[in-house]
């Protein structure tokens, strides 16, 4: 298989089951070099499993492909040298200090001056003064930064980040993303899984996976457009009461409060219009047709996927 030089990840038909239960089904994806690729999906949808297959930690039952041009089945050793994988759960040594953790990674990858490389990374991460602190005693935000530092230390060409910002405050999250964008600007490819919509919108491309199947992928605009979802934003009085009246009506696939307004969506524009017609003239309500949010699209995708699989 020849891989275009500008493709970092190119896999086809990946399938993985655990104890007879299919966790990832026939998954194909292409990630361009130098791009930030968002990987979204509900809990248990198979994001972590997919990422593990990409870096050789799990062997796919079916399917094949390449990562940085190396076969994911047979050239895991070469992939491991060039990929930085940040696990979902903090997986540096809690009983080693910040410096010792970084030096350990540097030595494993054969960086010529591990002590110097670790020191430089500590500078870059802004962890000066905490070098000797045990990694286990860092706060959540600092742990994530350290983990990112550890996996960028050996100069990888591809970063696989599994929910890197879970449980991190907004400011730290923003800094983390600024760092990811800076790395991508240097030519790094980043595949990042997340549950946050604002993070999805910071990606060049996204993919949505549910029940082990990749449902959509593309830019955020593509995905929203592709959904063919029609959404109305309603503001006014007693939205809670309205929500109860609308929920479950044929034609209305989704109704959910968004701050002080309500999003009402349906896949079939005519059916949706018919369903909301009786409420449109209700006093005190303002109806406006709007773009569905990414979250609307995902929740709709998920409920559709559930209909298909259960």
């Amino acid at each position, binding site marked *: 298989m020849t891989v275009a030089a500008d493709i970092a990840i190119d896999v086809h038909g990946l399938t993985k089951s655990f104890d007879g239960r299919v966790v990832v089904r026939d998954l194909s994806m292409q990630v361009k070099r130098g791009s930030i690729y968002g990987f979204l999906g509900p809990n248990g949808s198979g994001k972590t499993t997919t990422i593990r297959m990409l870096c050789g*930690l799990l062997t796919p039952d079916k399917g094949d492909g390449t990562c940085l041009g190396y076969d994911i089945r047979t050239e895991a050793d070469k992939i*491991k040298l060039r990929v930085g*994988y940040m*696990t979902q759960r903090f997986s540096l040594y*809690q009983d080693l200090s910040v410096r010792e953790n970084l030096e350990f990674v540097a*030595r*494993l*990858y*054969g960086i010529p001056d591990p002590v110097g490389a670790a020191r430089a990374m500590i500078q870059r991460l802004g962890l000066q003064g905490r070098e000797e602190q045990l990694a286990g005693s860092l706060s959540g935000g600092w742990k994530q930064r350290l983990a990112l530092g550890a996996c960028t230390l050996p100069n990888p060409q591809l970063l696989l980040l599994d929910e890197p910002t879970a449980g991190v405050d907004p400011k730290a999250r923003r800094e983390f993303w600024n760092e990811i964008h800076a790395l991508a600007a240097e030519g790094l490819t980043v595949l990042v899984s997340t549950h946050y919509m604002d993070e999805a919108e910071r990606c060049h491309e996204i993919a949505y996976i549910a029940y082990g199947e990749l449902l959509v992928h593309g830019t955020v605009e593509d995905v929203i457009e592709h959904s063919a979802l029609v959404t109305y934003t309603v503001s006014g009085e007693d939205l809670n009461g309205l929500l109860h009246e609308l929920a479950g009506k044929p034609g209305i696939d989704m109704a959910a409060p968004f701050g002080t307004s309500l999003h009402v969506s349906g896949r079939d524009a005519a059916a949706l219009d018919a369903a909301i017609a009786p409420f449109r003239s209700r006093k005190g309500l303002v109806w406006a047709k709007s773009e569905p949010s990414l979250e609307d699209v995902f929740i709709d995708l998920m409920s559709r996927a559930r209909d298909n699989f259960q």
Partner: protein
Amino acid sequence: MSAREPNISSGFWRRTTAMLIKEFIQLRRDRVSFAMIVMIPLMQLVLFGYAINTTPRDLPTAVLLQESSDLGRSILKALENTRYFKITHQVTDEAEFDRLIQSGNVLFGVEIPRGFERALRRGEKPALLVAADATDPVAAGSALGALNQVVRTALQNDRAVPDAGAPSFEIRQHARYNPAAETALNIVPGLVGTILTMTMLIFTALSVTREIERGTMESLLSMPITPIEIMLGKIVPYIIVGFVQAALIVGTGILLFGVPVLGSLWLLAALSTLFIATNLSVGYTFSTVAQNQLQAVQMSMMFFLPNILLSGFMFPFAGMPTWAQWIGEALPLTHYIRIVRAIMLKGSTLAELHYDAIALFFLMLVAMTIAVTRFRRTLD
């Protein structure tokens, strides 16, 4: 992109060293384990050591008197004079005598048979039966050992014995429940092997499972390091730990209990390395199989128990049935205990120990091979 063109096959030592440094730092930081390395040998040695060092005194004894004679009474007096025995029961009924020993009320039973005095005066060499409850071999063994000489000397002073020079009667010893009583010096060399087995097993059995439980294995596996490098990095620090422990036990044994080292310490050190590496590999195998740290400890105990029971540490190897001896031959501790006892107490050389040395080497190879092949490179 990257100027560095790395190669997985080079840098074996570099990666192993990285792993090794990491393990050392972690070990140093784990205060409790660190204390255990020193405390376990010292505690065991002192406990065992003083148990064997105590000369038994006033062991409860029953006497079955089947005749009432002056001679019988002076034998009993002589027994009590040794201070080993304290006659707590005097019975005339054999069933009662047996019951006392069986129930553990007494540790010894002395039987003076009917017609003993008359037979003695005729020079017929009658038997004086001494039954010992040898479930506690240390206590029973030393008392029995002393019995012969002490009683004889005591009797020589007694006018009742016609010819003091020649042995005029026979003391027939009967150790019940544990036919061969161990001698004391055997225990310290045995302890070297036992303590090493226990600590080496547990430490490595936990090493991989701990990484899996803490989630660090996932990162480790995603980095360019091979199973052999991981294993060596984890085993080598504990070889050093094992040496420290062995030195501690042997040193304390010499200082506190005057255990001799007749053979070469270098030979002992060299063969100890084999033994330590074998146990580390076994522990490492467990840690690749176990799902969590508790299981790893349980597996270690499963391995540890037969080592203790069938190696000749607790019970004499030659006294075991053949099938148990076969199992014993497959256990590293069996060979190591023979080696340590032979080097320390008999001053044996490698030429005399080559069978056990080769067996140990073979067991080490087997254990290491299993450990490396069992190691999973993926999370499947």
